[in-house]
């Protein structure tokens, strides 16, 4: 064990502190000033970055947990056992942080528990709520042995370990439901979500992509763990995971193509429109590129190759979730949503907190069970060198990866440009005078009761006060005169006193717009003196 004493101020720690400070400030803004002041959300665009990224991606990135635990415990493929704990931890953190994000996004976060007692089983959101609650609990239990070990609590450890299999089965079912239900959320907006993403198969797409994503996240995590904590897994295990990811991606891509073609939406991908470009970028970066790269054994078994491919899968699927949640809704919403600084700061803070907790857990708990290995194989390059002649693969990875990433970025960039170009084409509401006289029947004559300072009752003739060329009730009825209660008794609101204060009749009868109430000697023009 090496102890460095006080934490040194490194570049990344400085970044972390900056993110946390910005996040804290954004949190204060969010809860003091409300959603309107802190986000770019609007009635036209009620779900933004916090749902599209924090929730949808947070859950998807946690998919490693159920994928790997099913492989190890259900399919009994024991060689993946060493990566169980880190994936469960990631999943648990992912879900916990989704709940944190919901506290920011919900208008009334203190009612977050309502779905537990107020049921609406016909709501996908209800299912999502229950899945989050139950699966977070299952994940906490699945991870608890690591904590119990540390605290040397034998009895609870034994109890939880005896529950392993039921917990794993529950976890897999809940994840299946939850991953797919995030897609089901959008089944109800066929007229709002762009046809490139709207599909009756959305739940299936979300589920399949979550499995590929689970593999990719596991690969990435173990590489990052290696860099940060000098703890890692056997490279051949990761290569095997890469292979699984490639197969799943192939399935995903095939299904996607079939779906688009059968709905006749395939051509929309090649339209010169924002959505088409974003779709192509997502598919290229998130599915085609990593599938091709992982299908090449030389790249798959190469450290850099595997890392880059996994990173592409993760980025591609983040793009996919954002496209479903934001890009695809953009056009039908009629507004151009772009997250506010507060939304971005909160999101960064949540991600940063995830990293911090993960590293703390790795430091103080036995997350990586085969710790001894780090002394035998201190760094992965050494291990990778045993596998492959690194140089040739590295060049190939660089060339392929750079091509794919550059392609995706170019597509996305051209998409954003198309979007700004299209932004000005908003539907104009005309403001011309109306067609007059379509069987217009002016309300009957009114008699207004005499008030204290009034010379007499007022007989009000609606017809005399209306411009038949352009009937506009709001001139008088916007606050001045009640429409609904204005039979005879106006509750004392209409009075000579008020009229003199330029209120009521005086608002127009002011001597400028029309004759004023004091202009005439002849009160009988309006007042009935009898």
């Amino acid at each position, binding site marked *: 064990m090496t102890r460095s004493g006080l934490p040194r101020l490194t570049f990344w720690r400085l970044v972390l502190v900056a993110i946390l400070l910005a996040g804290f400030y954004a949190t204060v803004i969010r809860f003091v000033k409300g959603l309107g002041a802190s986000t770019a959300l609007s009635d036209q665009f009620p*779900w933004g970055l916090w749902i599209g990224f924090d929730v949808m991606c947070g859950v998807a990135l946690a998919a490693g947990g159920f994928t790997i635990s099913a492989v190890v415990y259900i399919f009994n493929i024991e060689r993946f056992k060493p990566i169980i704990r880190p994936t469960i931890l990631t999943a648990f953190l992912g879900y916990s942080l989704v709940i944190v994000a919901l506290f920011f996004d919900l208008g009334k976060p203190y009612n977050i528990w309502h779905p537990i007692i107020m049921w609406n089983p016909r709501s996908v959101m209800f299912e999502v709520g229950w899945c989050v609650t139950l699966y977070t609990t299952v994940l906490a239990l699945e991870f608890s042995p690591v904590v119990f070990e540390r605290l040397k609590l034998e009895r609870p450890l034994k109890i939880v370990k005896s529950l392993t299999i039921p917990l794993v089965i529950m976890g897999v079912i809940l994840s299946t439901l939850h991953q797919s239900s995030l897609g089901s959320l959008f089944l109800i907006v066929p007229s709002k979500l762009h046809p490139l993403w709207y599909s009756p198969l959305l739940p299936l797409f979300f589920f399949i992509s979550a499995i590929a994503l689970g593999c990719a996240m596991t690969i990435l995590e173990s590489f990052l763990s290696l860099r940060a904590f000098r703890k890692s897994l056997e490279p051949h295990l990761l290569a095997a995971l890469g292979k699984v990811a490639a197969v799943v991606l192939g399935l995903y891509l095939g299904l996607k193509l079939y779906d688009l073609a059968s709905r006749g939406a395939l051509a929309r991908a090649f339209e010169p429109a924002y959505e088409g470009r974003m779709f192509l970028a997502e598919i290229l970066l998130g599915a085609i590129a990593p599938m091709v790269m992982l299908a090449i054994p030389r790249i798959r078994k190469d450290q850099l190759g595997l890392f880059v491919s996994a990173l592409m899968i993760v980025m591609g699927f983040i793009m996919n979730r954002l496209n479903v949640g934001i890009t695809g809704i953009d056009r039908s919403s009629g507004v151009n949503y772009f997250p506010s600084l507060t939304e971005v700061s909160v999101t960064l803070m949540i991600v940063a907190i995830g990293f911090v907790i993960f590293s703390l857990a790795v430091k103080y708990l036995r997350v990586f069970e085969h710790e001894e290995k780090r002394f035998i194989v201190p760094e992965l390059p050494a291990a990778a060198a045993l596998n492959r002649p690194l140089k040739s693969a590295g060049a190939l990875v660089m060339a392929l990866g750079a091509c794919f990433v550059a392609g995706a970025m170019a597509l996305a960039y051209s998409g954003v440009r198309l979007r700004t170009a299209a932004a000005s084409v908003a539907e104009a509401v005309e403001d011309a005078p*109306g067609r007059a006289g379509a069987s217009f029947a002016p309300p009957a004559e009114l008699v207004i009761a005499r008030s204290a300072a009034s010379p007499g009752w007022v007989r009000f003739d609606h017809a005399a006060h209306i411009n038949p060329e352009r009937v506009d009730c709001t001139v008088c009825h916007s606050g001045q005169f009640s429409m609904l209660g204005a039979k005879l008794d106006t509750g004392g609101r209409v009075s000579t006193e008020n009229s003199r204060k330029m209120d009521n009749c005086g608002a127009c009868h002011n001597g400028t717009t029309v004759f004023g109430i004091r202009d005439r000697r002849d009160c009988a023009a309006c007042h009935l003196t009898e």
Partner: protein
Amino acid sequence: METRSQVKKAILFDTTLCIGCGACYEACKEKNSLPRTHNNFLRDTLSADTYTVVNRRAGRFVRRMCMHCDSPTCVSVCPVGALEKTAAGPVLYDESKCMGCRYCMQACPFNVPAYEWDEPIPRIRKCTLCADRIAEGLPTACASVCPTGATKFGDRAGLIAEARQRIHDNPGRYSDHIYGIEEVGGTSVLLLSDVPFDSLGYRMDLMKAPLPDLTWQALEKIPGVVTVGGALMSGIYWITRRRAKVRRALSEQAKDIESAGPGESDS
């Protein structure tokens, strides 16, 4: 009174009769005690402070408001049942249940529910079809003040019959469609027009079936996924464990044979 409110009520809005006087707009504001939001009501939009608008599109005046769907999307998506479709037609909101997920806003095919974005404790706001007035046997505020009959309140079935009659009696005047009979499974606001509804901002590409059917197709599979998934995984677990056991036993047997030497494998 009780029976009267059980008959499904509706509003019929005929854009050929509307002169854009703004009476409905102001009556709605007054009824719901909403503040002024725009100095030209014709340019106002739906918001937490405006439950109905009259806009000018394609040379016509057209109202927008909650459509009070027969199978409301908002009601089906609300995870806590804060929205409810009442027998008389109004879709009503209960702020004490709401947790503010805004799925109703995201899901509404007409983009109606509005949010109090600037409130510390925000609520969903929208037209209530004057449910309290209906319960008292009164028409909605907007219909009660309309000077041309463009907005008419009544029993839904009766209004549909009347709309058909108007189309029949005035050949060539209307486009032959009553918006709201079939759209998303039917709505409690019906529209008549002489220009295509698309040009008025009313989408014609909406499904005829209720939208909640779409999610139900996914949700109804949950019990199946749970039981089949659970059984399947338990089965696979049993098989793989047994296989491992057999393998272990076999390898032990092989070891025994090896150590015991050939010729004694019968026992």
